[in-house]
Structure formats: C-alpha cells, structure tokens
C-alpha cells in the first residue's frame, strides 16, 4: 500500500518534470515531442494515479488497516520530548482519504481528457496541462498527508495552481483580477488555518493527525475552540463559505476544465476534507459546530437563491457549487462528517459532469443537440443529499427546513438551467438569453471561434464516462452502503460514529418531493411562462441589482474591506516607502556617488598628478621618520 500511495505522489511529479523538460519547449525536438503533446505524459500519469488510488480504495474496502507512514523527517526543532516539535513528511491512507482520493483522481483524469479536446489549438496548451497537473498533484498530496503542516503545504499548492489557472488567459484584465481575487480571498483563510496549526503545535506538541487526536484531552477547551474556529475559517475560504465565498463565482474566468476541476475535485473539496479530517477536534466543540452549521445553512440557502437569478450558465453552476458546499458544511455542523464526505464525493462526480456539459454547450452554442444527457447529475446528488437531510433533521428542525429549502432551490435552478438551455425558446428580450455571450469564455465566440471541434471525441467521451460514473455511483454505491463502508474504513474518528442508517423512506420521499417540486416550479417558470424571467427583472430593477450584487455582500466587501486595505496599503507605500525609506536610500546612494566622484578626482590619469601623489606620500613617509627619530 505504501508503494501504491507513493506512486500517487511520484507519478504526477514525474509527469510534470517530463512535460516540462521534454515537451514544454519553444523549439520542439521533433513533431511528436513538442508543446502540442504535453498531455501524453500527463494523461499517462492520470491513468496510473487513478488505477493506484482505486486499488487503494479497494484495499481499504477489503478491510486493510490504515496506512500511516513517515517517509522522512521534514523539520524538527527543540529536540525530542516536550517543548520540541518534529514534523515529518508522511503518507496516510485511510477510508476517508481513499474515498476522496479515488473520486479526485478519477474525476480529474476524465477532466484532463476533456481538456485535451477543449484546449486543443490554444497557444498555451502545454502550459495549461502543466498547471492543470500541478493542481491535481497538490490535491493528491493534500489528501495523502499525515500531518497538518504537510497538508498545509499542499493546501497552498492547490491555491497557487488555482491562481495560475484562473488567470490562465492572462492577457485579459478580468482573468487577472479574478485570479488575484481568488488568491487574496484564500489568503485570508490560509492565515487563519496557519494560526490554527500554530496553536495545535503549541498545545499538542505535534502535528501528526494520529498523535494530535490522541492528545486532545490535554488541550484546554477554549484552545480547542480557537483551533476549530480558525480551521473552519481556512475551510471557509477554500470551500467558498459565506464570508469568503466571493472568489468562486469569479473563478469562472479560467478555461472551463479548470472550473470543472476546481468545483468538483481539487479546490473546494479541500476545505470540507480538512473539516472531515479534523472531525475529532470539531466534535469536542459544539459551539463551533453550531457556527459551522449556521454558516453552511446560510450559504446554502443564499447561494441557491442567487443561483436561481443568474443568467450565465457557468455562474449558475458556480453558485450551485457554493450551495452544495454549504450543504456539506451543514452536514458537518449537524454532526455527520460521513454525510459531508459522501456528499463531497457525489458532488465531485455530478458537478464535474455538469461543468463539462456546460463547456460543451458553450462550445456548441445554439446546437443543444450535441450536449450530453446530464441526468446523471441530480440522481447521484440525490442520495447523498438525503443523508444530509437526515443528519439535519435529527439535529434540529430549523436546519432540516433549511436543507429542504435548499433542495427545492437546487431543483429550481438546475431545472431552470436545463429547461432554458436545452428546451427554451429564445425569450423576447435579448439580455435574458439563457446563454449570454458574456460567459467566462476566453476565446472569441461564435463564428470567430477557431476551435470548432463539434465532433472531437475528446470532448464527448469523458463527459459520457463521468455521467455514467455519477449515475452508477449515485444509484449503486451509496444506497448499498459501499461508500459508507469505504469512508468509515479504518477512520481516525473514534468508534463507529455514523452508523449506516437504513434508507429512511419518509425523509427520502420528502426530499424527492422537494426536488420534484423545485423542478416542477422551474418548469412552470421557465417553460409555461417564459416571460416571467425578464418581467420581474424589468418590474423590480432594484431587486435584480440586489441579486447581481449578492444582496450587497460583494459591494460591502469591496467597500469595507478591499478599499480600506488598498487605501492603507497605498498610504503605507507612499508615506513609509516612497517618502521615507526611498529618500533615505536615495540620499545614501547620492552620497556614495559624490564620495566616489571625489575619490576618482584623485586619479585623473595624469602622469604628473600621480607623480605628485607619490612625492607627497614619500614626503609624508619622511616626515614620519623624522618624527620618530
């Protein structure tokens, strides 16, 4: 198992190195070994990684003990014993990790394959694949980490790769801005997470998961609450929860495969994964759990409402992701880390499918026939969502109601999207087209699109495979309890915390009814009364503006956080850097220039002058001799 886990880390690294050294060249060695074929080593690595991670999952399912192994000591300070801290570089594979890893590698591999078709012909094809694989590598490392600092390292790697990919079309101002926004927003969370790690290192004396969780009894409750809260803030940024979700909708600026990867497999799942990993800490601080549940419920509801009002296909999906992540957080807060993880896995599959469909739709604008059946999405999500309902209902009625509302909402927006996109007649108003041209696509659209690959198999088969897998997993794996057994195999969670409840038909029926109600309502609004969508926009322009601004949260953040910070930075930069320090440095430099000019006046290259200096020196020497005498 160690070897399989190592392969998961080494294969992407080798592929990246090979791609960088042999393919990513301005002057290719041969037509078969140039920037146009960087994807081959990387696809190979994807296949290897997927195979080994599924083998790992199978091992865990077959009852193998968890793998927790130190590879080498990364850094150590203060020597062994109390007061010292030693951080290792290690591997950990348990049920949770294997389940997430299997999802991440399979989904990412298919998205990589899709990207081959999507990015073909782009001048940055090679660069894109290197970034893309770096993203996957970081996520694999994150899932396989066995301590918090290593996890943090890859956590930052994920952030970096997402920055590079969101700003991939760097010649566009909006892409650069979105990338910066994502990076800076994540930075807020990262700092919180880092402080949580500091607190942990200080109070537990170790960062290894197993050791930390064994020593939790020694840590005072208030410290634990701080750790859990700060960690949750970190997860908030990565997993796009309420105060820090703002970067995710803008992250659409990257190429569509990036969005798919980010929303499904690699980026936003990291926060939920961290929360599930740290469940032993979280479960000791019920106050923080309540906060998590409230944040999740609020985010899920708000994002569902906003998703319903958006017109841009990818933007709808982005808010839907935020909403689903809210659901996962809600499940965590409601006390069921298993439900959150299960939904994470399911969501990975169906959101990737949806995004790739959206990418195809954007490529075949006006040709809805080419798009793939997306029925796999809602089915897969249904069962795991159901788990969350159960958890929420068991916890409290309000949370249950929230979750139900979200289900109605997601039925609404997914249904609306599907109806409008595939069956909608063009509404009268041009600005309410379901597929506006202002989507986050970097290329010229329509006839100027140079990448007309309507029949590119690379665009079709990964989507079909993803749809197949999400339907398969949604229908076969979740209800039969296989996923449950996998996630709970050899857990760090104590005992048997989340028993596999028999399918609750009452709740299931309620959830199904909620989703159907949502879909029905969306059909009514989108198909039976197609004018409704633009009528309310016309009648209530203020409301539309409020929706566009996320109920004023985006302007609030801009006005109350970003601009003051920018102003402060300007002030500091101007006053302390330009006015004070720069002037001091300039004065120092000027005085050195003056000094050297003065000194260089002593050697003008004039022979007579040199003789003069020599004579003066000799005279001084003689005077000195006379003086001593």
């Amino acid at each position: 198992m160690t070897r399989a886990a190592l392969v998961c880390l080494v294969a992407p690294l080798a592929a990246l190195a090979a791609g960088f050294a042999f393919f990513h060249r301005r002057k290719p060695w041969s037509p078969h070994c140039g920037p146009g074929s960087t994807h081959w080593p990387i696809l190979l690595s994807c296949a290897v990684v997927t195979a080994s991670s599924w083998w790992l999952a199978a091992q865990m399912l077959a009852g193998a003990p968890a793998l927790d192994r130190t590879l080498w000591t990364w850094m150590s300070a203060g020597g062994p014993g109390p007061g010292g801290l030693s951080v290792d570089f290690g591997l950990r594979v348990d049920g949770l990790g294997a389940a997430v890893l299997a999802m991440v590698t399979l989904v990412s591999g298919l998205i990589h394959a899709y990207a081959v078709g999507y990015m073909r012909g782009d001048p940055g094809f090679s660069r894109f694949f290197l970034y893309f694989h770096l993203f996957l590598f970081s996520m694999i490392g994150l899932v396989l980490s066995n301590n918090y600092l290593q996890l943090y390292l890859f956590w930052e790697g994920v952030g970096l790769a997402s920055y590079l990919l969101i700003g991939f079309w760097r010649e566009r101002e909006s892409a650069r801005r979105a990338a910066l926004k994502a990076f800076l927003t994540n930075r807020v969370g990262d700092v919180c997470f880092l402080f949580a790690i500091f607190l942990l290192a200080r109070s537990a004396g170790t960062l290894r998961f197993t050791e930390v969780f064994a020593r939790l009894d020694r840590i005072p409750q208030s410290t634990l609450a701080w750790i859990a809260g700060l960690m949750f803030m970190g997860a908030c940024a990565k997993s796009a929860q309420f105060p820090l979700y703002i970067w995710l909708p803008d992250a659409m600026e990257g190429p569509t495969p990036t969005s798919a990867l980010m929303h499904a497999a690699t980026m936003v799942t990291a926060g939920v994964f961290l929360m599930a990993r740290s469940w032993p800490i979280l479960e000791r601080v019920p106050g923080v759990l309540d906060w998590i549940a409230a944040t999740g419920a609020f985010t899920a509801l708000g994002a569902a409402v906003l998703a319903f009002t958006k017109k841009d296909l990818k933007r709808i999906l982005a808010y839907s992701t935020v909403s689903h992540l809210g659901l996962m957080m809600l499940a965590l807060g409601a006390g069921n880390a298993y439900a959150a993880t299960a939904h994470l896995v399911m969501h990975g599959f169906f959101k990737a499918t949806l995004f790739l469909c959206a990418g195809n739709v954007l490529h075949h604008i006006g040709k809805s026939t080419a798009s793939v059946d997306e029925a796999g999405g809602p089915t897969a999500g249904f069962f795991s969502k159901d788990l969350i309902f159960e958890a929420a209902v068991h916890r409290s009625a309000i949370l249950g109601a929230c979750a139900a509302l979200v289900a109605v909402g997601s039925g609404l927006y997914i249904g609306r999207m599907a109806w409008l996109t595939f069956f909608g007649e063009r509404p009268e108003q041009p600005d309410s087209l379901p597929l506006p041209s202002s989507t986050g696509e970097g290329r010229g659209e329509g006839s100027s699109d140079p990448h007309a690959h309507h029949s590119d198999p690379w665009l079709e088969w990964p989507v079909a495979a993803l749809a197949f897998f999400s339907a398969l997993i949604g229908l076969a794996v979740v209800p039969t309890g296989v996923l449950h057994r996998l996630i709970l195999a050899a857990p760090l969670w104590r005992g048997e915390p989340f028993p596999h409840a028999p399918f609750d038909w009452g709740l299931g029926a309620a959830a199904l009814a909620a989703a159907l109600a949502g879909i029905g309502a969306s059909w009514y609004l989108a198909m039976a009364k197609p004018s409704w969508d633009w009528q309310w926009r016309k009648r209530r322009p203020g409301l539309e503006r409020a929706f566009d601004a996320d109920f004023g949260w985006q302007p609030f953040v801009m006005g109350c956080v970003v601009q003051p910070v920018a102003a402060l930075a300007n002030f500091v930069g101007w006053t302390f850097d330009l006015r004070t320090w720069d002037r001091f440095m300039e004065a120092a430099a000027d005085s050195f220039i003056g000094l050297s000019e003065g000194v260089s006046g002593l050697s003008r290259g004039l022979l007579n002058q040199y003789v003069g200096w020599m004579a003066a020196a000799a005279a001084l020497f003689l005077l000195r001799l006379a003086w001593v005498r």
Partner: protein
Amino acid sequence: MTPDRVVWLVSVLLFLCGLAALLLRRQLLAMLLGLELMINAANLNFVFYGREWSDAAGWTSALWVLAAAAAEAVVGLTLILALNRLAEPDTDSVRELEG
C-alpha cells in the same frame, strides 16, 4: 660650511629640480630628464658618504643605481618613441587610466 653640508644642499636642490620637472612638464622627455636629475641627486650622496666613511658599499650602490638608471632610460626612451607617434605626444593626452 662643511663639505657634507654642501653636498647635502646640492643634492636636495638637484632632487627638487628633478621633482619640479616631473611635476610641471608635460613632455615625457623632459620628465625623464627630471627623473635622471633625481636619481643622480641620490647618487651624489652615495658617492660622497662612501668616500667620507671609506665604505665601498656606497660606491657599489652608486654603480648599481647607474645601471638601473641606464635600464630605466632604455625603457623610458622606448616609451617616448612610441608616444611620439601620437598627434599630441604629451602626457595629458595619455590618460586611459582615468578613474
């Protein structure tokens, strides 16, 4: 005025004349002449005190200095010849070592 005082004064005067030529003249030939004056001012002391103290070291030193001066004249004159091919063969125009 004792003889040693006379020799001392003459040699100092010779030395200062040579130094003045070296400092003030811009023609290399004149500067070389100044240099010879300075060398011989020193030589005068060697010869005089060699005789005064009956010490052969003074005379041999004087011979050594003459040999060195001859060598120096060879090198210097070669340099002067090379320099004279320039349009302005004075030392102010040869200042590539300006710092």
